[in-house]
Each structure stands twice: as structure tokens, then as C-alpha cells.
């Protein structure tokens, strides 16, 4: 039973993670700084999901990436591309709409 609720929750959250990640990449971020920013906002994301997700988004050309080797530790920075910004805006609108509809349907359901 608890397995089921876990998998249902994961499924429910899966799409929102992309939105959360995109929202934090208006400025360049490297992997770990992104994790911290998400955690500050109480978005818990499995790190083994996040890093591959970044690569997929880059492959879909929503993100661009760049290695910064100027510091003593090389870091890969990710940033929203122009295309990514457009997609983010659309996804954001979609989210607002969906959550509004769902909230009103669930009648004052949890609107965190």
C-alpha cells in the first residue's frame, strides 16, 4: 500500500520537477548550487534524477551548458536557452491554469 502511494506521488511530481528546475535556471547554475536552491524552496529532488534530467533538458535544447574551469574545481553551468525561456513561460502558464482548475475542483484541497 505504501509502495503504491509512493509511486503515485512520484508520478504526480515528475512533470513538476522539470518546471521547478527550469524556473531556477534564469541565471547560470551548476549542479550542486541548483540542488541547494531547490532545497531552499522546499523542493526535494533526488540527485540521481536531477543530473540526468539536466542533461536531457540540454539535449532537448531547453538549456545550454558551459564548463567553467577558471576556479580550482571545474564546474558545469547550466542556463536557460532562448527556446527554454519560451517553453518555461508556456509551462508556467499551463501550471497556473491546471493547478487553479484542480484546486477549484478539489474544493479547497491542499494548495501548497
Amino acid at each position, binding site marked *: 500500500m505504501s509502495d503504491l502511494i509512493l509511486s503515485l506521488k512520484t508520478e504526480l511530481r515528475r512533470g513538476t520537477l522539470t518546471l521547478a528546475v527550469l524556473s531556477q535556471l534564469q541565471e547560470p547554475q*551548476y*549542479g*550542486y*548550487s541548483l540542488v541547494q536552491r531547490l532545497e531552499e524552496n522546499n523542493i526535494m529532488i*533526488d*540527485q*540521481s*534524477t536531477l*543530473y*540526468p*534530467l539536466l*542533461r*536531457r533538458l540540454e*539535449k532537448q535544447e531547453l538549456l545550454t551548458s558551459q*564548463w567553467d574551469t577558471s576556479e580550482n*574545481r*571545474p*564546474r*558545469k553551468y547550466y542556463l536557460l536557452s532562448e527556446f527554454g525561456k519560451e517553453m518555461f513561460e508556456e509551462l508556467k502558464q499551463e501550471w497556473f491554469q491546471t493547478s487553479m482548475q484542480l484546486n477549484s475542483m478539489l474544493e479547497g484541497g491542499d494548495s501548497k
Partner: protein
Amino acid sequence: MNLQECYINEVTRRLPVKIRDDIAMELRSIIEDMLPDEHTEEDLKKVLSKLGDPAKLANEYQDKPRYIIGPDFYDSYINVLIVAAIISVVVSSLALFVHGIMTFDEDKSLFALLSLVGQLSLKMLLSSFNVLFQVFFWVTIVFIVLERTGLSYEKGQNKKKPWTPDDLYQVEKVEKKRQIPKSEVFFSLFWTALWATILFNASNLIGWYEQTGEGLKGLKLEAPLFNQDVLYSYAPFLILLIAIEIGLAIYKFFIGKWTKALAVINMVYHFFSLGLLCVMLTDSTLFNKAFTLKLFEAFKDVPAGWWIGTIISTMVIFSIIDIISGFNKAAAKTNITNLQIK
């Protein structure tokens, strides 16, 4: 190698070479970011456990599907497997059965009959197992290739134009004119099994019979039709023909209706079998001298080439009829070509 490099290696060795270095570098910086400045092995272990199982992480990095046969193909895979299994078991058992009956001695005692039945059943069972494994192996291979190359009939259809309920009318109309009855497929498989068995046992079966006693028992094979050695030298071609016939029947079974592609394949098959027939019939070494002598003795008025000519022209006529009917049926409605598997 330290624990960190060990972990990175565990991830990257599961990835394509192309992206290995980049991911290794990224993982290295991620892990180091997560570690406090002065860290112990315990800290490292904590960090690595946060990243989780390297195999799982590597899977996340892989874009490739993590299945052999995906949902697009699963249904047809199972269907093909079931049907192919049934067909092949039936055909192989049939071939064994025919062979067993034909090589059965005149010995009519009950014991001999029972032992024949027992042997045959055992043979059929074993060959069925063998055949099932073969079918499973080959069908799976074919579907893996289909899956990997993305040759999906459903996908292909979607690309052309979206489905509308109107398509259903066309499907229904087409079915009637172009349908291939399943019985036809089974009959052709049966036919293949039959001629193949008879041909490969020809030295005991076909030839000049003479009545030397009473009834069936007195029928004696005086001269076989073929020289066995020469006949066997044709075996590769005959086996190829059998394979083509079986393949064609199975293909017919699955698409269930005549298409242009099927008509073309059917034509190629006929050309091949006619070609083989002509070569074999005009090969005088194939026929047993004793048989030809008996034949000419019995039918003195018939010229030598007549037999061969008659057989070939009969086969040519039947083949032409079948080829034309194939194309006709395929053309019954031509605008539904998107339903066929290319």
C-alpha cells in the same frame, strides 16, 4: 583507486563512450561540491549514498530504452509468438507424422503399430520443443530489430495522417475483397510439409510400381523416379523453396489481406519455384534410367519431351493464374496502402 573514482567508474562504464568523459567530470565536480572541505571517508560515503546506486544513475543518464520490446510492439510480439508457435508445431509434427506413416513397414502386427505410434509421439514432442525454442529465438530477434530500428506500423501510420473513425469503413470494405482466409494459409503450410516430405523420401515412394501380388501389398516399387544422389544435390534449393513457402504463408497469415508487396513477393516465389522446377526437370541425370525406360515402354507413342513439357506448362499456367489473381486482389482497393507493413 579511491572510493570516489570507483563510484564514477561504476557509473560511466555503463554509458556510451562518447559521453563518458563529460559525465565523469561532472560527477567529480558534483561529488566534490557536496563534500565539506575537510572530509573523511564517512562523509564521502554519505554523499555517494545520496547519489544512489551507480547502475540506477547510469540508467537515468541513458536515453536508450531500457527494454527489449516496447509497448508499441508488445501486443504484436505476443500474437506473432503464439501463432508462429502453433503453426510451426503443427507443421513439424505433420511432417514427422507423414514421414512416419510412409516409412512404415508392411508389418501389420499390433505391436509394430503401437511402437510406431509411441515413437512418433515422442519424436513429435521432442521436435515440438526444439521448434518452439527456434520460434521463440527468431521471433524475438526480429522484434528486437524492429524495436531498435523503430519500424512501427502504428508509428508510420500516425506520421502520415491522424486516425479518424472514417478509416474504419475502408478497413471493412477492404477486408472482404482482399482477405486471405486462414484456412488457405494452413492448407499451403500443409501442402509444403507434404511435398517436402514426399520429395525427400522419393526413393522409397515415387517411382514405377508393378503389381506382383494381390492388393496393395503386392504393389512393388520397381524403379524409383529419381536418382537419390542427384536429388539430394538439389537439397539446398529445395530447402530454400520450403523456407520461402513457409515464410510466405506466415506473412500472409499476419497481414491477412493481399497487398501489392505481397503480390510481388508471391510473383518472385513463383518465378523461383518455376525456375527450380525447369532446371530439375530438364536435368536428365536426375531421373533414374530404369524408370524412364519403363515409362517409354509403357507409352510408346508419347514423345520423350511430352511429359516434361506437360508438367512445366501446367505449372506455368497455374503460376500465372495465381500471380495475376494476387495482383488483382491487391489492387481491389489501392488507397489503403498505409495499412500495410512495408
